[in-house]
């Protein structure tokens, strides 16, 4: 593993006796896109606020972009960029004035501030509206401007809270492509989102969080861990008669039939599929299609949250 962009050990924060973030231990390597998923009120914003030195943890410690929380928070804030939940822009100021103001707060000199402002306004296709008051901007334009603001000072670690929320498909694509560009530049992205398709598409690592970190893995790892891997075989007719044949193969973990669909759980579908299909065809199975068994990140997410809820209920009942 390369250098770490974010490392937290037992990070904890309570509000009025209730744990918003409980014992969060997490490592995110530099240059990765990390998806931080969880339901509303799970403590995601509190986590982001702690990691950007906006609020202090009550327990544990964290190191972000090489700076330990509480030691040099000003330098830490200079090393990170944040897109907050709401864009938070000055409506009476123009797009350029908004960005220039923030660039100056990040200590960019006026030449560099102007250069960076132009760069990001052009990248996010807002240059044509640079002198218009932001109050007249659409939600998508405001969101893009807020993303530009988070990047003006070229931070190593970027926190994006719901970057595509409320955007039309075209604007969402611009933002997604932009996140990919940022990753290509070697930046670390901490992405908080409810859009699981975005998370699936963009993230190298996913953390599922609800007060505590429930799971941390790659999207593929999460799927494999939860549902295993497998193959779906569509037959020309009822699939049930072929279940015993399939289960007789030593490498098959399980097989199930639903109508004309035979679902087979395997450990290594890439290697085992040819033997499986050959065996079925040899016994006369009318194979029409063979497709990998895929679970969406949404299925994974809901399953994990459901498991966590059940565990809590069991623990509660046991008390």
């Amino acid at each position: 593993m390369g250098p770490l962009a974010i490392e937290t050990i037992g990070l904890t924060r309570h509000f009025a006796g209730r744990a918003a973030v409980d014992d969060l231990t997490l490592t995110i390597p530099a240059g990765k896109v990390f998806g931080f998923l969880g339901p509303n009120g799970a403590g995601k914003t509190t986590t982001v606020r702690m990691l950007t030195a906006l609020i202090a943890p009550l327990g544990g410690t964290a190191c972000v972009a090489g700076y330990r929380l509480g030691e040099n928070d000003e330098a830490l804030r200079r090393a990170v960029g944040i897109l907050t939940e709401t864009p938070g822009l000055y409506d009476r100021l123009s797009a350029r004035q908004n960005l220039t103001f923030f660039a100056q707060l990040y200590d960019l000199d006026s030449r560099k501030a102007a250069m960076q402002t132009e760069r990001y306004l052009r990248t996010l296709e807002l240059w044509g509206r640079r002198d218009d008051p932001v109050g007249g901007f659409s939600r998508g334009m405001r969101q893009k401007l807020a993303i530009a603001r988070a990047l003006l000072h070229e931070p190593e670690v970027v926190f994006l809270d719901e970057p595509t929320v409320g955007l039309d498909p075209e604007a969402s694509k611009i933002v997604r492509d932009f996140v990919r560009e940022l990753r290509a530049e070697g930046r670390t992205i901490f992405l908080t989102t409810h859009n699981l398709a975005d998370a699936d598409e963009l993230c190298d690592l996913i953390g599922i969080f609800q007060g505590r970190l429930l799971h941390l893995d790659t999207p593929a790892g999460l799927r494999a861990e939860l549902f295993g891997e497998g193959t779906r075989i569509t037959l020309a007719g009822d699939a049930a008669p072929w279940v015993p044949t399939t289960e007789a193969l030593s490498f098959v973990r399980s097989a199930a039939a639903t109508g004309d669909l035979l679902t087979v759980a395997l450990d290594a579908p890439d290697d085992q599929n040819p033997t499986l299909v050959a065996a079925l065809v040899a016994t006369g199975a009318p194979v029409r299609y063979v497709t990998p068994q895929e679970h969406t990140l949404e299925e994974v997410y809901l399953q994990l949250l459901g498991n966590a809820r059940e565990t809590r209920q069991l623990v509660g009942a046991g008390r």
Partner: protein
Amino acid sequence: MRRVWVILQKEWLELRQDRLILIGTFGPAIMLTLLPLLGMWAVRHAPDSPPQDDSTLAAANPALLGLTGREFGQAILGQQLSVLFFLLPLIIPSVIAAYSVVGEKAGRTLEPLLATPLRTWQLLLGKTLAALLPAVAVTWTLGGIFVLGVRSIAISPRVTDAIVSPGWVIILTLCTPLLALVTIALMVAISARVNDPRTAQQVSGVLVLPIVTVVAGQVSGRLVLNPPAALGITAILALLAALALWAATRLFGREVVLTRWR
């Protein structure tokens, strides 16, 4: 201090671009300057009457002794209305600070702002100066215009002396920044609970009460703004301003703003 200057410039840029705030800020200031001058001008052109013999007022306020009827009219009108001048350091910063602090909260711009390397004292100082400097500059400038107006409209130098008294000058010069500071600190405190700049302004209206008390004291003859009284008021205000600023600093911490402001 560079970041304080950046905040200050942004505040004034926003202020310049909102005509309603400009009118709300400077309109009343001009009205309060012209009102006593117009009253005095009207008295100057009224028919004269015999010298006044108001022993209660004269006992408390010797500057009114021996004035003719019209002189007395101008002096008493000028004295009473000149106290309204002290509303300016309340009105001007309350409008500016309402939009600058509560507006920032309502527009959800505080979090991105606090996420920059900016220190909270720099933010608070920038915002305080953005409201304080115009309040002081406008009050002193209009105060100067008022003095010139009184001089040219007053029937006699005795009227000018009665209105532009040393006590009034002390309060205008020393209490203006202090009143403005108390107002700004109050606006910060109100910001913790209120989400609308107009509501914040309405709540800050309580600050007018002490000024109304001073006016009532003057009218009834119980309070005369002589230098000792003016210095006493200044000292009380200085103490209040220090306390209010201390409280505002505590309320404007990064953590407090993000977790406790509602």
